[in-house]
């Protein structure tokens, strides 16, 4: 059904990601290493955004004198 199709589509996207980054050629543990590195870096970026975005937005609005 829709969930099955969605899962197939996600599998296909993961396959494309493996092909493009050439992880397809590497062994499973190397894939794990690379994926965890990528997820940790992405996670850190998201966390930093979450922590600092309100301050940055307030600073921008203050600069443009939209809010005091």
């Amino acid at each position: 059904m829709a969930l099955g199709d969605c899962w197939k589509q996600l599998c296909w996207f993961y396959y494309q990601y493996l092909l493009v980054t050439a992880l397809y050629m590497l062994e499973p543990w190397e894939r794990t290493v690379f994926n965890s590195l990528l997820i940790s870096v992405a996670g850190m970026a998201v966390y930093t955004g979450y922590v600092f975005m309100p301050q940055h937005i307030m600073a921008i609005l203050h600069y443009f004198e939209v809010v005091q």
Partner: protein
Amino acid sequence: MARTAAVANFKPKLNHNGLKCEDTEKNGYRSRKEKNGPGTGFASRQHQQESFEQAPMYVAVMTYLGFGIVTLFGYLRDFLRAVGLEKCNLAQEREEQKDFVPLYQDFENFYTRNLYMRVRDNWNRPICTLPGPVFDLMERVSDDYNWTFRFTGRAIHNVINMGSYNYLGFAENRADFLQTVADTMHQYGPGVCSTRQEMGNLRIHEELEELVADFLGVESSMIFGMGFATNSMNIPALVGKGCLILSDELNHTSLILGARLSGATIRVFKHNNMHSLEKMLKEAVCSGQPRTHRPWRKILIMVEGIYSMEGSVVRLPEVIALKKKYKAYLYLDEAHSIGAVGPSGRGVTELFNVNIDDVDVMMGTFTKSFGASGGYIAGKKELVDYLRSHSHSAVYATAMTPSVTEQIIRAMKCIMGKDSSTEGIRRIRQLAENTRYFRARLKEMGFIIYGNDDSPVVPLLLYMPGKVVAFAREMLDRKIGVVVVGFPATPITEARARFCVSAAHTRAMLDQVLHHLNEVGDLLCLKFSRRKHFSPPDLCDETDFELDS
């Protein structure tokens, strides 16, 4: 661009018969009326369409990204091996030699250890039947990520063969065709046990040499037992120190090896680029040898008929015009084009309808279109007689086996029509038709294909290393055997799959291959072409040149 203009200017005037008439002049090249071979009612090609489309930028970026990631992991694995956390399965220096000059640290070894070994199940696959249009493969699996293989004992049957150089389908084992070969084997035995100059010159060799000379329309020819050795051992006999060799960028290793062994100065011109060649010729004639400025003893231009990695065809009329203007010699290597192009299979000289005497040294191999092994050099009688005594191959290499010689004789007679059947011409036409159909359909589907529309070698660009490997595996799962090539045989960003169309492929087989290619292309996202798809070539007579400079 200038390249387009150069091609568009070359339109020979035709008289009412369709034969070239006397007064075509371009760069001093004057064409004479040619006696056309059998089955030709039309004159030379009026245009050659070659395309080398560039992929979009993101493809190049992703290719570099893929290679970068695998290289980083390669360094990691090398580190683990050096530290001792992982067993090294390849050759390593001994403990006592660790202070010596390192043997395995160069890029080539790094590449082999960390990229090639991971995926080498796609190459060197053992086959169990003859390499006809379909064949059987042995099934093999690996338990340790391709360091070692073991055979399961089963075979994969009826895999369509898109990788063998079987252009005219002579790699066959029909008993009625091979009767003469079997008889020759009974008569002469398998081995010759001598070189041509000692006791190995058999009557059958002389018969083949006369046949080759007749086939090509030259005075005389000489055959050798190995195609690679034909190039590498005969070029040193023709040129030496004080001579200049102008060789195309993408020449085969045998030509490069022969040129290096000869001791002549080698200069490389850009692939099929006449401006680059002319500039080099001009400079060579004006400046002479590097320090002394004496004139060069000989200038030899080395080109191939069809370049096997690109599928492009040499611009023969223009090269001949240049060679006549600057008084150089021409060495034409027709390994892939003899038997495969031209209305009666005589190669690129027939394709462009040039005078055979304009090409000084014609070389070719019997491995591709004739289903045998060996090579030949043909030309004027003085040249061939000189080679008979001065070539390394003639003096030191064992002569060609009689049964192989007979196979070439029967294949060549078939092509020439001398066995009083139309089988030869039927195969040539079938190959031309298969080539056109296959290329047109692939372009229509949206793949990037390199090369000339007449060449039976079809490189399909894959670019990314992960996709190269996945493509080969997917096609094998669908029972189609393809050859994929990556670095170092091609530039690092242009990995490709190379298809060799054969006259033995039926339309049904090609359709099956194309159907699976379509599916795999969608699955792996390989359709990078950005050109607008135009109608099949036999419906339009005006081509649009989409050449990227």
